[in-house]
């Protein structure tokens, strides 16, 4: 207890005893055994704080401003312990014990409270005191005397004097008789904190008192003093320690207070809320708290328990308040930045307790508001946004990733991964929560009507049944969409391209539905939003596509250094949202054999029959893969010079259930170093042959027949080879395809069974025979041939660049740009732009003066998004051709692309 509070309490004690007359500083000085000048200083402080009234005169009299006692109040009687956070949970037993200790006849039981620093021992003792008064075991004005044995631990004599009183002459300086605290607490409670600091003599004296009910003052051998005091002691010591064993023997009631860690997160949240509320009351304003900050506070290591938690929250509030003042903000917002370094780390532990955190915070918004409400005396958390909507989840992810320095285009890749899971969860959660009549309270009636209408339409068009679940979720979703659009927020759907490709039927229907929504609500739905609507319409497909964990490729990261691998893996797993990748650290002094054996064990452990991707940095590690394969039979592919980004990429793909080969390829494409290497290889073998693969189970029957049909119907004059392959073993098929890819451009796969290979169009045998498959194939060939020819024919005109390579790179870029911008460019336009860009590269290489684009500012203003996307792709040419492409050039290209584009919707 702070000295100033002690003085306040002392004042109240005397005030109550002295029949409510003013108290002088001298009286207090005697009572508390503190020097008068200090007493006066504290009293002045209390006066300033408005806790104490002065009655002018000589001497000045002080009295407490308000009657402190509100005991006897019926409500409190029931609630004194009930109000405590955790009273029905972690504190249930301690409270039962405390009540028993107080009520035990005739005079209660002396109590020892055990608990770590900051768990609230003092508060608990005070509560026991209040409870005792409330239960009328002690008088309303009974004293509560608090003493910290550590305060005088260096001077045992003084300490014992304080506690038991001193007879005049007992020692030098003891110039008069003095009562001890044990006497002063007569009729009430004496709280002895840090009782383990009590010297052995003092313990003996205390035990004597406990046994017999009386004690002697220091230096007094004649008189015994009787006093009726309930002793509540407290310590942080281990109860098994020598000292405490004697204590525990003598003191009948031992109450264990749980540490913060032992308490549930729910309780911790209540505590946090309580403290924010207190701060809010102190400041007199609402306090807004960022959810991430709240999660950090929930999870960080807090060795000094509640006391520390409270202190850290106070500090955070103070910082936030400072920002509010210094930056003239409209509100006080506490974010992670305001937390001490160790508390910020809390958010990193989310992976261990994600579920629990979600279950207690799930319904809360991204920003929580705390304010002190006198009437309810209860905090209320106010959701700023519609709860449970995609956008916030995505935006948050994006922001987190941005903050750790990941590039924008990589972000959207990473965000991809969780969105489906989230979607599923969203759908699952909603129906449990809502009934039809309830939804009308949340969602606007007009929107409900629209949803009914569009779902009916979708059912007819897609020939599907949509259940109530979809209805509810779509309604809720649309509700927040509309709100978002009206507020001018952006809608971003990182899976848009995937959705368009995989759910094309649903996507087309969604576009029609969007038109209905647009006209009825007079808003404009962006393509990204149509993507979301598509997800609802295609929701039935998600379940089928659920991957079991067994289908995944393992990822093992091995790095030199004590924790390099672990920390990379930690970041990757956290971002991917699953503990998929495994780490093996290689301290510099570890022997390679040792390490190899651990690697072997790990590989066997994590292989699910799909192989393991080994990600290493350098040296001998790069040879591990082959050795492991020979030793264990597990298919292992090694990637070297691995970066964190690469681990994220591998992890992401693995979790999505991609094959080892696919993951390997996409890693190669992500890693700039490896990519350079591979593009150099590509430069050497420019002459790729065009190939169409036909496939059936045997590679003979249907595949051969398809080959003949194609030959006949296609009238191929160009150099296109048709190769039949067997599909019996998918793995083998993929390997052969990979092999073919080395020297050939695979234009298309025609087969009896659907084979989904990224970047290679598939045409079914059925389409070839009965549909427009031949035309499609023709188009594919024409497309390929024309570009190839352009590449060749430019060859004789361009001196500084390899035109074939340029054409193929530029084509790739243009495809990506079309995807990213959700536009379609006609073939004519593509050819024009390819030519333009080839000449552009040539001229830059030549060093000829580059062109100037006049209205750059206007273009930036109008098409900043488009510019950024196009620029990003075009910049990738810089490395390949070793040129610098200036803004003006990019402006021309952006304009050409925009002006020619056919918007998807």
């Amino acid at each position, binding site marked *: 207890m702070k000295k100033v509070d002690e003085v306040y309490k002392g004042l109240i004690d005397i005030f109550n005893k002295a029949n409510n007359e003013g108290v002088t500083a001298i009286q207090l000085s005697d009572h508390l055994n503190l020097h008068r000048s200090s007493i006066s200083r504290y009293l002045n402080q209390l006066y300033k704080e408005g806790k104490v009234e002065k009655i002018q005169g000589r001497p000045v009299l002080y009295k407490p401003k308000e009657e402190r006692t509100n005991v006897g109040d019926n409500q409190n009687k029931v609630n004194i312990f009930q109000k405590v956070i955790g009273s029905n949970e972690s504190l249930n037993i301690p409270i039962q014990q405390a009540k028993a200790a107080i009520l035990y006849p005739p005079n209660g039981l002396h109590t020892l409270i055990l608990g770590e620093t900051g768990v609230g021992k003092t508060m608990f003792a005070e509560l026991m005191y209040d409870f005792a008064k409330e239960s009328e075991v002690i008088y309303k004005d009974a004293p509560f005397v608090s003493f910290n044995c550590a305060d005088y631990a260096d001077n045992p004599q003084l300490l014992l004097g304080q506690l038991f009183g001193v007879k005049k002459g007992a020692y030098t300086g003891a110039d008069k008789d003095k009562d001890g605290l044990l006497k002063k607490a007569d009729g009430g409670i004496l709280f002895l904190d840090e009782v383990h600091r009590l010297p052995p003599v003092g313990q003996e004296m205390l035990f004597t008192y406990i046994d017999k009910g009386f004690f002697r003052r220091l230096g007094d051998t004649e008189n015994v003093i009787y006093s009726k005091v309930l002793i509540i002691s407290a310590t942080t010591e281990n109860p098994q320690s020598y000292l405490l064993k004697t204590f525990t023997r003598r003191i009948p009631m031992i109450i264990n207070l749980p540490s913060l860690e032992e308490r549930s997160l729910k309780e911790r949240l209540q505590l946090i809320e309580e403290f924010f509320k207190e701060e809010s009351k102190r400041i007199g304003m609402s306090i807004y708290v960022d959810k991430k900050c709240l999660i950090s506070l929930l999870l960080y290591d807090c060795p000094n328990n509640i006391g520390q938690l409270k202190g850290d929250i106070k500090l955070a509030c103070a910082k936030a308040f400072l920002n509010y003042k210094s930056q003239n903000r409209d509100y006080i917002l506490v974010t992670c930045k305001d937390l001490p370094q160790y508390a910020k780390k809390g958010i990193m532990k989310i992976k261990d307790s994600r579920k629990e955190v979600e279950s207690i915070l799930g319904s809360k918004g991204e920003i929580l508001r705390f304010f002190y409400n006198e009437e309810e005396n209860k905090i209320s958390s106010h959701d700023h946004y519609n709860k449970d909507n995609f956008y916030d989840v995505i935006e948050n992810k994006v922001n987190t990733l941005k903050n750790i320095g990941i590039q924008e285009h990589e972000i959207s890749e990473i965000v991809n991964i969780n969105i489906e899971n989230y979607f599923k969860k969203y759908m699952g959660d909603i129906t449990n929560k809502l009934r039809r009549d309830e939804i009308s309270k949340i969602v606007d009636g007009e929107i409900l009507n629209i949803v009914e209408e569009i779902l009916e339409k979708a059912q007819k068009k897609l020939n599907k049944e949509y259940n109530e679940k979809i209805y509810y979720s779509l309604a809720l979703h649309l509700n927040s969409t509309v709100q978002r659009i009206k507020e001018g927020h952006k809608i971003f759907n990182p899976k848009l391209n995937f959705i368009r490709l995989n759910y094309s039927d649903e996507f087309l229907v969604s576009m029609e539905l969007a038109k209905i929504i647009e006209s009825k609500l007079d808003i404009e739905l962006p393509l990204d939003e149509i993507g979301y609507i598509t997800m609802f319409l295609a929701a039935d497909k998600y379940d089928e596509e659920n991957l079991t964990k067994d289908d995944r490729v393992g990822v093992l990261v091995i790095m030199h250094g004590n924790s390099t691998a672990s920390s990379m893996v930690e970041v990757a797993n956290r971002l991917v949202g699953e503990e998929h990748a495994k780490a093996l650290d290689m301290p510099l002094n570890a022997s390679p054999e040792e390490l190899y054996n651990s690697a072997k064990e790990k590989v066997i452990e994590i292989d699910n029959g799909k192989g393991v991707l080994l990600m290493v940095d350098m040296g001998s590690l790069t040879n591990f893969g082959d050795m492991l394969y020979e030793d264990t039979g597990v298919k292992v592919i090694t990637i070297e010079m691995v970066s964190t980004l690469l681990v994220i990429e591998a992890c992401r793909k693995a979790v999505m259930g991609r094959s080892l080969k696919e993951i390997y390829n996409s890693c190669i494409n992500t890693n700039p170093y490896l990519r350079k290497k591979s593009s150099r290889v590509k430069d050497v073998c420019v002459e790729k042959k065009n190939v169409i693969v036909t496939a059936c189970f045997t590679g003979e029957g249907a595949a051969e027949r398809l080959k003949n049909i194609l030959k006949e119907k296609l009238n191929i004059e160009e150099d296109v080879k048709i190769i039949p392959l067997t599909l019996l073993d998918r793995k083998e098929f993929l390997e052969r395809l990979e092999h073919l890819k080395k020297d050939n451009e695979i234009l298309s796969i025609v087969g009896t069974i659907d084979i989904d290979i990224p970047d290679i169009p598939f045409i079914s045998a059925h389409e070839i025979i009965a549909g427009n498959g031949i035309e499609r194939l023709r188009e594919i060939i024409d497309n390929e041939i*024309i*570009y190839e*020819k*352009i590449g060749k*024919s*430019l060859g004789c*005109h361009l001196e500084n660049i390899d035109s074939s390579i340029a054409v193929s790179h530029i084509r790739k870029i243009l495809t990506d740009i079309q995807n990213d911008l959700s536009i379609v460019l*006609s*073939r*004519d*336009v593509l*050819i*024009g*732009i*390819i*030519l*333009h860009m*080839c*000449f*552009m590269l040539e*001229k830059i290489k030549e060093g000829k003066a580059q*062109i100037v684009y*006049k209205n750059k500012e206007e273009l930036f203003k109008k098409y900043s998004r488009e510019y950024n996307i196009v620029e990003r792709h075009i910049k990738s040419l810089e490395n390949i051709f070793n040129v610098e492409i200036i803004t003006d050039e990019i402006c*021309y*290209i952006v*304009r*050409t692309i925009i*002006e*020619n584009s056919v918007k998807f919707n």
Partner: protein
Amino acid sequence: MKILLCCAAGMSTSLIVEKMKKAAETRNMDVTIEAVSVDEIENVIQDYDVVLLGPQVKYKKNQLQKLGDKHGKKVDVINPVDYGLVKGDKILDFAIKLREDE
């Protein structure tokens, strides 16, 4: 005969101009061929007989056609394959035919 070629920045067409000139030379034709960017066309259109557009400025065709009509000039987009393969010969034919259609 005066032919005006037009593309986004006047870049890709310059090679085509060269090839067309060569083709005209072998045919002993007297032609003037120039390449300009799309933004300059308005200032020079009256000096030429026909205007050929690169495929990437196809979007401008309608607008330029109106301009051409005003000056009594034909405007059309070059066949993308000929353009892509830089077939000066064929593009020259196209220009001649366009003018004859008048």
